């Protein structure tokens, strides 16, 4: 197979584009996709401080590498989740990347800072591990970005991640979640702007980007995610993609273009209803009786076995 752009031998074939690419042309293609997403959705403004949430996996480390290649300065944020050897190993990949490229990596350890880990939080709050993990990461990412004065938080959610989330939300017609699923979540009081520069790139393309640029990343899947619903949706979508290349991108891109705005009002209403958490101050839905406490603080209190400390005036 030849490279579609230059005619040299191809190293990767992308069926959704009916094309093969050599190393150099593929790297250029991948960076063009990220640049296009950033520009189309006004993700990063001139002079803004960017924080990239990194897990040690291909998407987040590849994203950090791409931002730097596109001359966008960014620091990294690693959250230690306390998932046994998996967390220890993933931290090594994140630190290794930062050291090799002489980059700043902020680390937050869930146990040291909040007194619990994901397995413990999951059991205490009776949440699925991935739910406890997602809740914790959203809280810590936002808090770390605001505390350290960043304008933008970038995450490595790729085309497959977003298509799988969309598939799950459509299956249940989760209209508020559909309204919230956007390439950019605007900043608001208590919220940093959150951006997803990889929405135009599949996870196979991200893995190829890392292999071709020599990025060392953790290949093994998180042991707590094995068999979860999100991965099941990805498998289904990949089977569809096999029969009909380009389906995943069409599903997601047409949602952003044609459907997402129809659900946007629900997000505006939900955000208008937010009040500061009585424990940590982060925005959280108001409650009809008493001061609101956010889901993260409730999980933390259950996990450490102590009552919620009310520190912030409502």
């Amino acid at each position, binding site marked *: *197979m030849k490279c579609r752009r230059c005619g040299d031998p*191809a*190293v*990767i*074939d992308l*069926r959704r584009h009916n094309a*093969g690419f050599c190393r150099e042309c593929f790297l250029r293609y991948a960076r063009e996709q990220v640049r296009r997403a950033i520009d189309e959705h006004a993700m990063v403004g001139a002079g803004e401080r960017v924080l990239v949430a990194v897990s040690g*996996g*291909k*998407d987040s480390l590849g994203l950090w590498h791409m931002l730097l290649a596109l001359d966008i300065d960014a620091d990294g944020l690693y959250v230690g989740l306390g998932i046994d050897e998996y967390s220890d190993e993933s931290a090594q990949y994140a630190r290794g990347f930062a050291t090799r490229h002489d980059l700043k990596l902020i680390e937050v350890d869930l146990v040291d800072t909040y007194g619990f880990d994901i397995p413990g939080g999951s059991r205490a709050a009776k949440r*699925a*591990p*991935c*739910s406890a*993990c*997602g809740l914790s990461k959203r809280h810590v990412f936002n808090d770390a970005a605001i505390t350290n004065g960043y304008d933008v938080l970038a995450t490595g*959610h790729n085309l*497959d*991640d977003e298509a*799988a*989330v969309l598939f799950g939300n459509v299956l249940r017609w989760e209209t508020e979640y559909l309204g919230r699923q956007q390439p950019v979540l605007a900043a608001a009081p208590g919220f940093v702007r959150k951006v997803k520069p990889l929405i135009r790139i*599949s*996870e*196979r393309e*991200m*893995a*190829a980007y890392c*292999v*071709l640029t020599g990025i060392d990343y953790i*290949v*093994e*899947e*998180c042991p*707590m*995610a*094995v068999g*979860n*619903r*999100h*991965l099941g949706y*990805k*498998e289904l979508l*990949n*089977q569809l*993609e*096999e029969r009909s290349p380009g389906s995943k991108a069409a599903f997601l891109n047409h949602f952003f273009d044609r459907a997402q705005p129809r659900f946007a009002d629900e997000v505006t209403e939900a955000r208008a209803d937010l009040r500061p958490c009585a424990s940590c101050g982060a925005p959280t839905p108001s409650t009809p009786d008493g001061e609101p406490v956010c889901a993260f603080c409730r999980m933390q209190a259950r996990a450490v076995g102590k009552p919620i400390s009310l520190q912030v005036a409502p």
Partner: protein
Amino acid sequence: MKVLLRNPKRELDVRAPKNVGQLLRELEVVPESVLVIRNDTLVTHDEHLHDDDVVEIRPVMSGGAQ
């Protein structure tokens, strides 16, 4: 040829010659869910594989709920 698979990690001996697409079909692996790496280099689905090749089939799916 030697074929390395992950999740769980294992190693298979597979008869060559055949191309990458045929290998994935034989192992019932969805091409969109993996990269194929021969002797540390990415290869496309029409690439021919030989008996002395070492081939890694690397899964690319990751992530929990968001």
